[in-house]
């Protein structure tokens, strides 16, 4: 349970960063931290006490009842790769804005208007 609370603290830090910071790169950093916190929650929830990795081997037979939950792991693999793609897109947009306005500050970008 303590692990879940710490995971949620990480999520809160990421959301705080997205809402409070004025710098575009800092906002991207907050988004990435939020994403990591959610992936971490999936990894935590799939854990079984004294569980083994969900891989069968011919020379060392393992009972399926002693394995960790493979489903959240498979889902989070998809989420990690999509997270990379969206991060690349956001960074490309931020670099484009920097080229046009010469700043990462969202307040100045908003005031310039075009």
């Amino acid at each position, binding site marked *: 349970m303590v692990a879940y609370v710490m995971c949620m603290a990480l999520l809160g830090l990421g959301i705080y*960063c997205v809402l409070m910071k*004025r710098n575009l790169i800092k906002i991207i950093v907050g988004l990435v931290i939020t994403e990591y916190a959610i*992936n971490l929650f999936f990894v935590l929830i799939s854990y079984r006490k004294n569980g083994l*990795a969900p891989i069968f081997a011919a020379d060392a037979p393992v009972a399926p009842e002693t394995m960790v939950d493979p489903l959240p792991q498979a889902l989070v693999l998809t989420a990690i790769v999509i997270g*990379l793609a969206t991060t690349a897109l956001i960074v490309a947009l931020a670099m484009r804005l920097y080229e046009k306005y010469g700043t990462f500050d969202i307040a100045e970008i908003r005031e310039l208007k075009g």
Partner: protein
Amino acid sequence: MLAIYIVLMLMIIGAVIAIEIKSLLSSVIAVGAVGMGLSLIALILNAPDVAITQLVVEIISVIILIRATIKKDLPESTTEQRVMSGVAALVFLAALVLVGIAVFKEIPPFGQPIMRVAGEYLANGVQETGATNIVASILLDYRGYDTLGEATVLFTAVLGVLTVVRRQGKKSEKSGGGSDHE
């Protein structure tokens, strides 16, 4: 299990450093430390596929972020914080805490997953798909359409990046659209 709490603590410290430090390059590198912590936790909690993927993705995303911040290491904004964003953050975090308390009452305790669906996959996965790694059999067989959708999102995002970072459009060829962003 002590190792998990140590790594989680390091992740939180790394996140605080990433959020509050002035230099953007240091902030990006601290985010890299958070991602490495996630990879370590996946390794400790017997999720080796997640650990490998997270490691690779983490390195690539730190490279992308460093490319965005290098040589334009601007100081933080000098304009003062507005009250509105602070209020919004407070309201949002309060809602998060309330939802979190409600969720923590329902959630199964740490170390005892429910596994209603995954039990079937673990029992029959090897016979039905022929893959000894159950995560791979879920990813590529039971939930193959998810992976197809993931590939579609990836393709669309790459198209978007190429469109956004293209140096010049067709019309602005004469008017010197080739502004160098080095």
